[in-house]
């Protein structure tokens, strides 16, 4: 293997001969300058690797959110309007199911059904970026996005439903009704807008998580995103890469939460930054 001399030379090169605390500050100093270290396995610096893998995760998160909202909000509204009806019951059952199906189970089922019964598999390790071929790109990402969006749609549905129910009892909705406005107008103009405020918070939190990478979904559908990068880095003990990805994910989460606060302020007239503590 390595001679003692070679080992010492290598340790000095990578700075491993210094005390851990000094190593940490060297790493931190480098990280602040955008230098997250080097991945030996990939033969590349960590930051470009992360940047290269991020768009897929970002797009996937976007599509998952769109799917979740597209399913969750209408069902949530319907459930709330037809409170305690058959529709409501089905809606609630759907949301319960959605929360109970882990995405690795759903992903496995989707791949199984698609390939065995329909003979199609939209993605086989050949991710095509959006700018290259938008249509193909969406085809490739739609099933992973459904996998990720499904359980989220359930929480969106629950949140929408309970927020709607609460709002519908508020004075201003009753006032709107008593003015003789049509029910659809009341719901659209008055109830929905206020009911969506908590949903936005939920989206924010969830978006932050989705950007952290869909570890299992990316693994099952072999998509080269941040999640798969992280899982591989972890299992191969690529510490520089693990540190880089972790920090990146945490920063993402903070940025997204900041963005949510901004949007929150934008749609809720009651919140302004002056009064926000």
């Amino acid at each position, binding site marked *: *293997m390595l*001679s003692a001399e070679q080992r010492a030379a290598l340790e000095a090169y990578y700075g491993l001969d210094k005390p851990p605390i000094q190593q940490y500050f060297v790493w931190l100093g480098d990280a602040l300058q955008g230098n997250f270290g080097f991945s030996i*396995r*990939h*033969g590349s610096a960590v930051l470009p690797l992360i*940047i*290269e893998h*991020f*768009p*897929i995760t*970002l*797009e996937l998160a*976007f599509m998952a959110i769109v799917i979740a909202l597209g399913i969750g909000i209408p069902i949530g509204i319907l459930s709330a309007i037809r409170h305690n009806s058959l529709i409501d019951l089905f809606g609630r059952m759907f949301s319960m199911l959605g929360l109970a199906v882990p995405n690795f189970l759903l992903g496995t089922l989707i*791949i*199984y059904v*698609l*390939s*065995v019964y329909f*003979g*199609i*598999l939209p*993605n*086989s*390790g*050949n*991710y*095509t*970026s*959006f*700018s*290259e071929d938008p249509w193909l790109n969406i085809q490739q990402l739609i099933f992973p996005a459904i996998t990720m969006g499904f359980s989220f749609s359930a929480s969106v549905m629950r949140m929408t439903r309970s927020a709607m129910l609460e709002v519908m009892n508020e004075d201003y909705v009753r006032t709107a009704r008593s003015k003789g406005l049509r029910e659809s107008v009341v719901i659209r103009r008055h109830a929905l807008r206020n009911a969506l405020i908590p949903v936005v918070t939920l989206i924010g939190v969830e978006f932050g998580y989705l950007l952290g990478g869909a570890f299992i979904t990316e*693994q*099952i*559908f*072999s998509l*080269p995103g941040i999640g*798969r990068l992280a899982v*591989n880095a972890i*299992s*191969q*003990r690529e510490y520089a890469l693990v540190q880089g990805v972790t920090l990146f994910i945490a920063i993402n989460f903070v940025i997204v939460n900041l*963005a949510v606060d*901004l*949007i929150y*302020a*934008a*749609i809720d007239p009651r919140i302004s930054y002056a009064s926000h503590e």
Partner: protein
Amino acid sequence: MSRSLRTGLFLLVMLGLLSIALPMSAQDNTLIMARAVDATGLDPHTQTAFVSLAALSMIYEPLVTTDNDLNLIPALATGWSFSEDGLKLTMNLRQGVTFHDGSDFTAEDVIASFTRLLNPDVASAAATNYASITSMEAPDDYTVVFNLSQPDVPLLAAMASTNAVILSSDVIANEDPALVTIGTGPFKLAEWTPEEKMVLAANEDWWGDGPYVDGIEVRIIPDEASILAALRAGTIDFAYLNDPLVATLLVDDANVTLHRTPVLSYNVLQLRAAVEPLDKLEVRQAISCAINRQEIVDSAALGEGRVTGPLTMASFALPTDDLFCYEQDVAKAQELMAAAGMETGFTLPVMVANAEPPTATAIAQVIQAQLDAINITVEIESLELNTYVDRWLAGDFSAAVALNGGRTDPYTMYARYWQYDARFQNVAGYIDDSLDSLMKQGQVETDPAARYEIFAQLQRELAEKAPWVWLYAPYTYTAHQSYVSGWEPTANDSLYFLYAAQINR
């Protein structure tokens, strides 16, 4: 309106980020191949993982190689001859061969490559096989003479290995072969994104006929069930499968051709006699007797495999009936445990790699159930491949379920394990004078009948001393769409012959 403006801006930024493009290349005549595990590194002289060697076999070439029937055929050497006394091997090199960087292939490269292989600092995987080479000389640019310390019959077979490929002398002198991949083979490395894909371009200047495809794109799809799905969906052309449970599902598929190839590699339960209580002969023998090998094949591989002794090549393999305890005998195993004073049993940690081969964890579970009968509690340690290989190389384990490579020649197959000072002696964990001497006799003996007898004896001794418990030889599976032709699989897991593959959609 600043609110909607802000929301709009946010969305715009996100969309902008979306359009960051990834470079992608796919031509119609590119063979799209998939496998579950990626190469662990690119230095052909030091790699031991099958996946790495299979990938490198398309890029680099050895002096000689083997055909489908495991006969030696010329590669970078066109002819070879031993001197009368067997102490000189003269090789005539192919002329007009160029490396991927355009430089000419000459005797200098051969000498540089073998010098590197024999350099202890390089820690070459197969160095032991070439230990008889004392010096090399080049009478001219296209002739190399290997001077040997003793007659070495298996040397030629040993050279037919991806571990003995020829690197450019420039690269050896000035670069790190683990990072700079320049070979003479039918394909050139164009791009490697570890754990995602490796793109190979056809080498237009290759000396042989072919390749007929523009390139090969090796995609890593971490799950063989997904590879199967991709084959059925027609999104990949070619697949390399290890999992018999998955591969056998393709048998009846009209659009996919499945090749099932018996290979020389073998599944084995490696015991390290250096570790207590495996240092006791009776304990190792008890383990061997307690194991029902056919049941392992039936459970772990659904019957896809052949029970084997230490040697897997047909020309040398003894019938398994001749070997110690190849019929499960629990009573005898219990007696042996008692004789060793271990009737109360012990705990045996067994390490396995979690995906390579896919059957490893299942093998370990069957062994666990079988050894329970003699009070041995097997603790399965499931490791990621890289970690597993590191610990395997360091000999840092008590027992391991391993899939080890076979060779056409018995000496080449085991030179690195069963000799004093062998490269992987520490991994083997056991050695004695008798094994060492049998190996050394087998290396120099030129009479085929006498050689057969030497290795028959080696097999009997290995089975009886049970340093390892040999289990079964698996099959490997290559599958491709019916529009792919020209591919013939070989028993040594090489993908070299993909140069003959064609796509006729």
